[in-house]
């Protein structure tokens, strides 16, 4: 079962914040986050393993709520380099990926 991501797309100006949500109908043991730039392979950002744990990658952080079977990715003070499509992946291998959230950061 694929996780559901929202929103589908978001447009930001540099310095603005955004939140991307990922929810699953199945119990979650871990959540992966990846970013894919146009024409490139997905790149690993972080894995969340414990309920409520927050991790960070630069000014990108995430939370994981096991009870709600949800994870959220927070883009803080966005930079141009944050543009791309963000995917959450859930489950043990194989991972099931959401449809992605396309983030466009404009100057």
């Amino acid at each position, binding site marked *: 079962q694929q996780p559901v991501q929202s929103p589908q797309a978001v447009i930001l100006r540099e310095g603005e914040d955004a939140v991307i949500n990922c929810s699953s109908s199945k119990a979650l043991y*871990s959540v992966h986050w*990846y970013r894919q730039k146009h024409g490139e392979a997905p790149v690993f950002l972080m894995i969340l393993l414990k309920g409520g744990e927050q991790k960070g990658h630069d000014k990108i952080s995430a939370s994981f709520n096991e009870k709600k079977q949800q994870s959220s990715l927070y883009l803080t003070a966005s930079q141009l380099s944050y543009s791309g499509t963000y995917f959450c992946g859930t489950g043990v291998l194989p991972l099931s*990926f959401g449809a992605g959230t396309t983030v466009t950061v404009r100057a």
Partner: protein
Amino acid sequence: DAGVTQSPTHLIKTRGQHVTLRCSPISGHKSVSWYQQVLGQGPQFIFQYYEKEERGRGNFPDRFSARQFPNYSSELNVNALLLGDSALYLCASSQASTGIGSPLHFGNGTRLTVT
């Protein structure tokens, strides 16, 4: 260290033909997964191999097959190509057999176009 390498990078085939895609994982990684990514969608799981054994298979027809070699490299084969097989095929390697705590490292993919 070299990342995950895939070949070829681009391929154009005709309906009904056969194609073989190749993947070399990161050194030390024993797990290889194959994903199909259609434009505008997330990667869809096709196969996972760990230590040369198939560990999982996605919802793809029997025209799709794969194998892993003793050096952990892998091949994905697709027979009787259909127009709908046109996609980016991604290979990902990881150290562990499960995704818990073990990130996937993706190659740059093979862009397959079926005409």
